[in-house]
C-alpha cells in the first residue's frame, strides 16, 4: 500500500555520513539500564566477574526472564551506582582480540515458544519493543502485528540499506524467525520510502510491503502504525529495527551471537563523518578525540530530535545507530527578536531568511527564547501527521486526565512522535517529556501501581 504524509518537516543539516566503514579501537564497554525504558534492573554480575558475549549482566526486576546480555568478552570493572543506589552503568574491560563473535551450534527452534526462549536466554529479546509505551514486551504476549521501518527520515539519519550492507541473508532470516515468533496469523509490515532503492526489502517473502512518501516523521514507526494498523486500548504492536532484525537472523542462521552493529557518525561539527562497526556500549572516546577539534560541541546518541546527550559514559545507546555532533549554542544576540534574521532557521515565517528561500542553516543547541505557557495553539498540527489533537493530548497529559488521554488516542503515540512539535513550539514547551510522563502515568495506572 502507498501512504502520503503531508504534515511534517525535514530539517536539513550538513554532515551526513560518508560511505566509509571503520572499526574503533576500544577496550571498554558501557552498558546502561537507562537505555531500556522503565526497566528496573537487578544485577546478575559483580565487579571482577568474567563475562562473555551473551552472558547476562542484569535482568528486569519485574520479569527475570528478560535479560540484557554482555556485548563483549571481558571482565566487569565496576558497577556505577547513582542516586538511591540505582545502577547507572556497568563498565566492562574488554580485549580487542576477542571482540565480537561467539559461535553456537546453529539453533533449530520448532515453534514460537522455543524462539522466544532462545532469544530471551541470549539477550536478543530486548531488541523487540512494543507500542504502546515503547517498552520490552512480555515474553508470553503476542502482538497483532510487527512493524519494521526500513527507512529513517530523521535529520542526517543513515540509509538503512547501508547499515545492512552485506547482511541481507541475515535480515531475511530474521524476518522469517520473527514471523514464526508472532505466528502466521499476525502480519509483519515492512515500511519503505517511496522512490528509494528498496530492492533489498522487496525481496522479503510473505510480508506486507508499504511505501511512504513525505517529510519526517514518515519514517517513524508510530506514524506507520497509525496509518496501517492503529492501536486501540488493550492491543499491542511490536517493532524491531532493521539492523536488530539482522542480528536476530544471524543468530538463527549461523549460530553466531554478536551485538555488533553499524553506527553512523554524523553532524556538522565532525572532521570526518562515516560508519563505525561496533557492539553496543563500545567506548567512543577515541573516535571523539580524533574527529572533534572544537571543545564546545554536543555529542548526541541518536538524532537531533530524539537523541540523548552523551556525557559521562561516551557510548551509543542500545537502540541507536546514529551519533550526531552539533555545535553547542548559547551565544547572546543584541535585540535578536527585532532583527530581520537573515540566518535564522524557523518553521514559522517570521524571519526574513524564509522570505529569501534560504535552505541550509548552521544549527546549534540554543533554545532561542524562554519557556512560556501554550500560546500558539495551531502550530503543532502543522507538523503532526496523526488524526489526533496534539494540543489537547498534551493538555490532558499535563492535567493527568487519564480518561481524556485514552480517548484522544495516547496509545498510538510515543514521545518521539512529538519531537517536531517540540522543535517548532514558540513557547518552548517540552512536549516529549510531557508525553513520556503521561505514558508512564498511564502504564502505572494500568498495572495498578502507585507513582
Amino acid at each position: 500500500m502507498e501512504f502520503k504524509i503531508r504534515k511534517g518537516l525535514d530539517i536539513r543539516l550538513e554532515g551526513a555520513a560518508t560511505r566509509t566503514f571503520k572499526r574503533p579501537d576500544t577496550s571498554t564497554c558501557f552498558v546502561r539500564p537507562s537505555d531500556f525504558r522503565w526497566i528496573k534492573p537487578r544485577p546478575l554480575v559483580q565487579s571482577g566477574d568474567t563475562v562473555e558475549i551473551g552472558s547476562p549482566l542484569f535482568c528486569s526486576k519485574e520479569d527475570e526472564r528478560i535479560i540484557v546480555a554482555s556485548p563483549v568478552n571481558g571482565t566487569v570493572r565496576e558497577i556505577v551506582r547513582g542516586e538511591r543506589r540505582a545502577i547507572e552503568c556497568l563498565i566492562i574491560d574488554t580485549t580487542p582480540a576477542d571482540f565480537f563473535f561467539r559461535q553456537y551450534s546453529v539453533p533449530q527452534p520448532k515453534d514460537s515458544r522455543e524462539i522466544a526462549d532462545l532469544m530471551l536466554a541470549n539477550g536478543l529479546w530486548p531488541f523487540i519493543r512494543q507500542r504502546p509505551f515503547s517498552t520490552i514486551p512480555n515474553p508470553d504476549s503476542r502482538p497483532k502485528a510487527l512493524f519494521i521501518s526500513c527507512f529513517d527520515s530523521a535529520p542526517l539519519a543513515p540509509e538503512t540499506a547501508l547499515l545492512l550492507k552485506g547482511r541481507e541473508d541475515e535480515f531475511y532470516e530474521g524476518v522469517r524467525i520473527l514471523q514464526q515468533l508472532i505466528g502466521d496469523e499476525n502480519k509483519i509490515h515492512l515500511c519503505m520510502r517511496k522512490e528509494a532503492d528498496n530492492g533489498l526489502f522487496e525481496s522479503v517473502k510473505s510480508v506486507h510491503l508499504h511505501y511512504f512518501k513525505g517529510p519526517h516523521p514518515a519514517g517513524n514507526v508510530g506514524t506507520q502504525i497509525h496509518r496501517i494498523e492503529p492501536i486501540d486500548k488493550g492491543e499491542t504492536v511490536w517493532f524491531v529495527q532493521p539492523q536488530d532484525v539482522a542480528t536476530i537472523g544471524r543468530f538463527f542462521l549461523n549460530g553466531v551471537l554478536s551485538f555488533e552493529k553499524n553506527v553512523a557518525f554524523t553532524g556538522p561539527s565532525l572532521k570526518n563523518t562515516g560508519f563505525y562497526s561496533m557492539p553496543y556500549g563500545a567506548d567512543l572516546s577515541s573516535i571523539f578525540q580524533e574527529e572533534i577539534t572544537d571543545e564546545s560541541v554536543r555529542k548526541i546518541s541518536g538524532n537531533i530530535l530524539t537523541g540523548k546527550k552523551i556525557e559521562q559514559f561516551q557510548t551509543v545507546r542500545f537502540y541507536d545507530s546514529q551519533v550526531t555532533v552539533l555545535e553547542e549554542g548559547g551565544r547572546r544576540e543584541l535585540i535578536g527578536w527585532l532583527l530581520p534574521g537573515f540566518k535564522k532557521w524557523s518553521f514559522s515565517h517570521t524571519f526574513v531568511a524564509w522570505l529569501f528561500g534560504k535552505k541550509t542553516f548552521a544549527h546549534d543547541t540554543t533554545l532561542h527564547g524562554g519557556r512560556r505557557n501554550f500560546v500558539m495553539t495551531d502550530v503543532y498540527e502543522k507538523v503532526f501527521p496523526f488524526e489526533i489533537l496534539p494540543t489537547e493530548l498534551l493538555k490532558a497529559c499535563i492535567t493527568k486526565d487519564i480518561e481524556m488521554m485514552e480517548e484522544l488516542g495516547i496509545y498510538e503515540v510515543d514521545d518521539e512522535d512529538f519531537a517536531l512539535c517540540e522543535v517548532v513550539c514558540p513557547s518552548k514547551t517540552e512536549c516529549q517529556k510531557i508525553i513520556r510522563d503521561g505514558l508512564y502515568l498511564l502504564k502505572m495506572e494500568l498495572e495498578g501501581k502507585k507513582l
Partner: protein
Amino acid sequence: MNIFEKIGKKLEPTFEKGKPLHCLYPLYDAIDTFLLTPKEVTSEGSHIRDAVDMKRIMITVMIALCPALFFGMWNLGYQHFLSQGMESGFWNCLLYGFLKWLPLVIVTYVSGLTVEIIFAHKRGHQVAEGFFVTGFIIPMIMPPDVPLWMVAIATAFAVLFAKEVFGGTGYNFLNPALVARAFVFFAYPSVISGDSVWISESADAISGATPLALAMNGSMEQMPSLLDLCIGTIPGCIGETSKIAILLGAIILIYTQVANWRIMLSVVVGGLVTGALLHTAGMSPVTGWEHLLMGGFLFGAVFMATDPVTATHTESGKYIYGLLIGILAIVIRVINKGYPEGMMLAILLMNIFAPLIDYCVIHIKIRKRKVNISRHKIKL
C-alpha cells in the same frame, strides 16, 4: 561579548535571591532578555529549536499593527485640523496624532507592566510578552480623548482580572485589550456614551460622529463615500479607521502565519452574510459591504478575534468561532441602537463560548476516531 552582556553580568548578582533588590529580578530579567537573546540551551528532548519565540511572535503582531497605527496618528491630526477648519501639512497631522497617542501608550504600558511584574515576582516566572501587544492595542481602540487615569485603571483591571488571576498569558479566556475597553465602556458611560464612543474629537469644538453612529441613527445622507471608508479619512479610533492599513496588517499576519486566516475569513464571511440578510430584510439601511468597512469590524476580525489564546484551539472550531463573531457583531449593531459598535461585545462573548465550541469539536473528533478504528478492524 558586547557591552550589554558585560553590564548584565556585572548587575546580575545584585538581583540574586537574598539580595535586597531581588524583588526587581523580573524587571531585570525582562530588560536583559529584551536586549539580548536568552543564553539557554536545550537540555532535554529535541536538541535544536526553532528560532521563533514569543517575543518574535509579538513583535510580528506589532509590526502588523504599525500601518494602522501610523495612519491612525496622521488621521487624528487630519480630522482635528479639518474640524477646526484649518489646513495643515502631513507632518503636522502626524505630530498632532503622535502627541495624542504618546501619553496613552505610556500610561498603558506603565500601568499594565506594573501589574505584570508584581505577578511575575509573586509567581517566580518571567514577564510574559503577551502584554506588549495588549498594551499596543489598547491605545488604538480607545477614544483618543479618554482621560488618562481611566486608561490606567482599565488597563490594570484588564491585566489583573482578565489575565493574571487565571494564571497569566496562555490561561486567560478573555482578550485583555477588549476587557480594558469594555471596562471603560461600562464603568464610565457618562464620559463615553454608546454612540459617541468611537469619536475622536469630543473635546474639540466640533464633534464628528463616526460613520457607524451616523448610519445607525439613519442619517445615511451624511455618510462618507466608500473610498473614504476604505482609506480611512473618517473620524474614529486610531486603529480602526483605515481598512487598507488593516488589510496590510492582515497580509503580514497571514504571510508570517502568526494569526490564523481561518478566523479572519470566517468573521468576514459571517459579517458579510448577516449584513446582507438584514439589509434585504429591510432591517438596516447599511449593506453587508458597508458593514465591513465601518467601525472596528475589520480591526477586530484581524487583530482581536485571532488572539490564539482566547480563540478556539481546535482548527475546525475556529470556523465556527469566527462565523459566530461576524454574525453577532452585525446583529448587535443592527438590533441594538444604543451600542452601534457590536464587534467588541461579539468577540468577548465568543471568547467565553470558545471553550464550549472546543469541547464539542473534541468530542466529535473522539467519536470519529472510535468509528475509524472499528472500521479499520472490520477491514482487516
